[in-house]
């Protein structure tokens, strides 16, 4: 959580109620400070060989998630997934979409 947003938040809370801003901050759920998903970039590669294994031959996808924090600053979060990991990732988002539709 960026330091700046804490200051803004504190000020906003103080404006609402004279005392107890610190207590109120503790009541706010952690994901209030969730970052916004902006975009995803991806790259598919195949690891052919390594020093410990001459025949790796596994495909993997590298993704870069573009996210924006509460102050609007954009950062890239990168990580790799093997095929089974990717399939699970995909499945979770499909489930999410299904739930969002029904709510």
């Amino acid at each position, binding site marked *: 959580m960026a330091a700046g947003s804490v200051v803004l938040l504190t000020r906003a809370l103080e404006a609402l109620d004279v005392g107890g801003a610190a207590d109120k901050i503790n009541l706010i759920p952690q994901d209030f400070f969730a970052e916004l*998903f902006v975009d995803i970039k991806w790259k598919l590669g195949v690891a052919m060989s390594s020093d410990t*294994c001459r025949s790796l031959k596994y495909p993997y996808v590298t993704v870069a998630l573009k996210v924006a924090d509460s102050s609007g600053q954009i950062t890239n979060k990168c990580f790799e997934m093997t095929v089974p990991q*990717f399939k699970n990732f995909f499945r979770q988002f499909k489930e999410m979409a299904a739930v969002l539709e029904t709510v």
Partner: protein
Amino acid sequence: MAAAEQQPPAVDGGKALSALLGGIAQAAYYGKVDITEELLRGQLYPEAAPEEFRALRAKMGGLLQICSCSHVMYSALCVVSPVQAGSLAESQSNPNLEIFTHPPDAHCLVNVSLAITPKALQSIASADMDLNQLEAFLTAQTKKQGGITSDQAAVIAKFWKNHRVKIHESLVNQSCWDNVLKNMNWRVDLKSQSRHVDQINTPVAIVEMELGKYGQESEFLCLEFDEAKVSQMLKKLTEIEESMTALTQTT
């Protein structure tokens, strides 16, 4: 030496040996310094004399060291019945085949990695041999001077069949040095209040992703997705899936 004291019955022979290997691995490879020789002996081989156990432990430790020389922690030791061990001992032409039997009438441990060279076993893992390749490789080994017998080849084939996937997975993970997605949780919330009136009652997905390198501390990323963003994500993930399918079809 005085007669052995009355001790609680020993664990089943084959299991005791497996447990011993596990204990050695914990101490030698995972830094569990409190697993002492005395602890292992008391728990697994209470009726064995200390010197006898020490010799067994040293032998097992040495074998595990050979097995782990390719940086993969697996045991190239197969548990066989005494009958199988006997037939292997009789038919084998390699004087280095070692059979460990402790206690004497329980299951025996056949050291496969000494029957073929550690390098050959490493070749199998490194090449990630399929069953046809393995058969050809082992047949070639049986024809070599001082090579393995067809019985030993059968034992090795059985071992590789059982362990291949796990070993390969281990090798794959060892060669991943970037962040991976270790875990992911999500829930869907309904925004009940907002500065912008039009956002009321919009469902939003909150996703928590645990990112980090294998064996290192994780970063927890908390992201918010509305319905449109989830659609955008699904579109991109579909592209990835299509690429993966195209790739596996051509290889």
